[in-house]
């Protein structure tokens, strides 16, 4: 791995989100809470979702983990809170596409905003799970919320 790759992974944006995560902490009200772990390394996240009238009112979370997993939870919070569930799912898919693209996918900045900073992470198979931990937890929690509604 070259130094350039390393810089691509640890972009300033990522390190900023890591140092000052947005929306961190567990808050009320919420409809679903999930706990996800990355078995390989032990990174953990507890995540709550508050959905009201099809709109994501809040994502609150408590997470232990590396810079990538922490920054990604922060970016998730930025991107998804305030959006409708449908819009959020589209963002989620775009993020997934980026992360699973082996570094070959050109991310859509209009959709992912700060999230495009994770393009460099996609080149490191071992770290993709770190970046996806919070997103998978969010998807799971949202699915639970919707299931309860019905």
């Amino acid at each position: 791995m070259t130094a350039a790759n390393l810089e691509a992974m640890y972009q300033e944006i990522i390190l900023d989100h890591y140092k000052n995560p947005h929306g961190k902490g567990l808050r009320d009200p919420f409809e679903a809470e999930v706990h996800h772990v990355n078995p390989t390394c032990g990174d953990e996240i507890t995540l709550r979702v508050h959905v009201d009238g099809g709109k994501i009112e809040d994502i609150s979370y408590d997470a232990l983990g590396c810079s990538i997993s922490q920054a990604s939870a922060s970016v998730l919070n930025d991107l998804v809170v305030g959006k409708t569930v449908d819009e959020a799912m589209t963002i989620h898919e775009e993020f997934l596409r980026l992360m699973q693209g082996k570094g070959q996918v050109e991310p859509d900045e209009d959709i992912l905003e700060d999230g495009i900073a994770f393009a460099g992470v996609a080149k490191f198979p071992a770290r993709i799970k770190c970046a996806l931990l919070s997103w998978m937890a969010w998807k799971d929690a949202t699915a639970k919320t919707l299931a309860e509604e019905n």
Partner: protein
Amino acid sequence: MKGLLPDLDLVRKDFPILERTFDGGETPLVYLDSANTSQKPQIVIDTMVDHLERHNANIARAMHHLGAEATEAFEGARDIVARFLGAPERDEVIFTKNASEGLNLVANTVPLAAGDVVVTTEMEHHSNIVPWQLATQRAGATLKWFGLTDDGQLDLSNIDELITPATKIVALTWVSNMLGTINPIAEIARKAHEVGALVVVDAAQAAPVLPIDLASMAEEERPDFLVFTGHKVVGPTGIGVLWGRRAALEALPPFLGGGEMIATVTMERSTYAPIPHKFEAGTPPIAEAVGLGAALEYLMHVGMENVHAHEQAITTYALERLATVPGVTVLGPADAAKRGGAIAFELDGVHPHDVAQVLDSKGVAIRAGHHCAKPAHQRFGVQASNRMSSYLYTTPAEIDALVEGLEYVRTFFKLDQ
């Protein structure tokens, strides 16, 4: 000869061991014991060596270069196995240490209660009998089995007595390692699924020679579990495969505990990883999985249809030639189209050990004994038999060498006097 691999000479060159000779070069090896274990092409050996010399690291856990390379190679091998089997999902492929472990894994974890019935057959390898004996004994369940017809087929006449709502498992071999018989697994699976039983197929002898495409099988005819073993498909020892339908695998509790099969561990309790890792406790056979991947790529490159055609051509020829040797009786189906590449036979008046020993002095390697299928031997009233078994590198000339060898055995033991 129709069906033979067109580039058989080239194929043979891929297998370094086939150049072995004995007695100072006088006696070439004639390896007719491939149902016992197959030989390995250079590409399998080289792939393992390259892995060990350049990419060796533990997998999943490691963030570093070598760890990433080893993980990619190992998980890449899983993709290849999935392709080889036509598995609906690659995560349904579990690496075990051999076929036996795969069968034991299922037998140990599948829920069984008193009154339940497990059905197997009289032609199974011990590895598909003993685990079910142990499991049914533990649970107070009952083990039943299909008998065999005189020509070595499954006797399905009492299928309605065997497969009933009490039947939880039907475990059977696709291809018999003794009789060579190919069993109608689709038909039996359909029947088993009607009563809600799980179907476990031992493909240890099928995977080497039959093209398998699980995804294209009708769902009600598709097994729920299938095992095979690396060393019989030109791959290394130390690795086997258990494929299971996702839902069927997910319904099983973990088998071995430890290492990478967990989600989280506290001293009080643990939660488990999703499949496939849930069933892969400890450091897996990494270089062996990589070698197995190379082996299956090799077979797919030759083409499993072609391997199968070759096997049938050789088997047809072998059955013809064996029939010319006085005193030889072949066990199992007479029709090559109905069988795999293992041919068990008796030579009247000479114990199989002695046959094998004398053949070996001519470089001809066959197996003598019960081939881990004692009940099938008992069924046919023989205590041991000879078995020749061919594979994609076997030539008609090697069958000739076997037949000449048998003539020599007859002379050696003065059978005509």
